[in-house]
Structure formats: C-alpha cells, structure tokens
C-alpha cells in the first residue's frame, strides 16, 4: 500500500521533511510507527498524536488510509 506520511511542527524539525510517500505492507498503525521510528530514532522523544485520513487514531487501529499524519501538541488560538 502506498502511504503518504505528513510531519508537522517539531516533528518535521526531527524528520527534516514535511511529507514522504512509502510502500508499506503492515496491518496496524503501530507497525507503521515502528517503521517510522526505525528511520527517525529521535522521534521517540517527541509527543504526538496520529491521524489517519484526517481522523485521530490509536496505535491499535488498522492501517487503512492513504494519508497518515504525525501531529505534535496543538497550539491554535
């Protein structure tokens, strides 16, 4: 499955990019996250939520979406 991963705020500072696409064959969000950690080890020190197709999901959620986003703490307003 081709997945687009978006990084924001301090997360994008760690990954040094705002977006990337990759082929991934895992089942759960947690598996994708392990894969992302393997690329960007420093992300383990960051707090963030994960959105799949623009909805927040948990680690146990099935991977179904084309668009995954790593969202650091919100700071609107």
């Amino acid at each position, binding site marked *: 499955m081709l997945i687009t991963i*978006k990084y*924001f*705020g*301090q997360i994008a500072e760690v990954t040094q990019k705002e977006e990337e696409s990759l082929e991934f064959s895992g089942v759960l969000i947690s598996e994708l996250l392990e894969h992302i950690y393997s690329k960007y080890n420093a992300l383990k020190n960051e707090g963030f939520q994960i*959105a799949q197709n*623009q909805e927040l999901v948990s680690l146990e959620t099935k991977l179904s979406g084309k668009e995954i*986003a790593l*969202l*650091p*703490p*919100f*700071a*609107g*307003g």
Partner: protein
Amino acid sequence: MTNKKIKNVFRQGAISSEFIGDSIAKHQTKTSIGAHNIFLGQVRADIIDNKTVSAIEYTAYEDMANAKFHDIRETAFEKFELTCMHIYHSLGTVKAGEICLFVFVSSPRRKVVFEALEFIVEAVKADVPVFGKEIFEDESHQWKVNK
C-alpha cells in the same frame, strides 16, 4: 446546516482590527440579533528564560483543521440558538500584540452567546491541528503547547 461546503478558516498573517470592524458592520442588517460575543486571541510577548517572544509562526494540517473547524461550527449550531458564527485563524507570522484568532457569534439573546463562544474557543484550542512556533527576539524558537 449539514452538507455545507467546508470553508477555509485560515488567513495569511495577522487578523487586522479593520477586518474585525468590517465584520461587525456587516451584521447591522441582521436585525433579529440582540447580542454579539467576540473572542480575540492575541500573541503575547512572553518572557521565557530571559528571552522575549517576538512572534508566533503558525502552521496547520490545513485540510484536517478546516474539517475540524467545520465540525465545531456544525456542533455549535446544533447546541445553541445562533444566528451567525464566524471563525478566522492566522497562518504564517503573527507578531506579539497582533491578533491570530477571531471567533464571532451572534444570537437574539445574550445567554446563548456566552455559552456558545466559550464552547467554540475551547474546542478550537483542543481539537484543531494548528502548530505555533514561538520566535524569540534572538531568532531562537520553541514550540507552543495549548493548556
């Protein structure tokens, strides 16, 4: 109110006082309104470790953020008897003292606008993926977190 097109809530840069004044003026034809309530978020020149915040640089997961603003809007219209509701949020650089959030609700009655405005502002702070980089005067930065 459902099925309405999702609006773009974001404005590039600070929200000007003229824009706010114009927005108020536009409501003078709506003569069923008895009460307006407006919330404005202003960038504070906080001092952190002896360094002063000179601006916040806002970014957002724009599509998701606009969808969340839309949900908040729909929920507010369901919960409260509102005549009008407007939300604007800045993207990009907003200097200390400038306005980055403008929420405007109107209703025939005042009790409604107080409840609705607080509900909306709290939802914006909690649910909308907007990120703020606090820029200090020496050009270093830290990331803002809503409390």
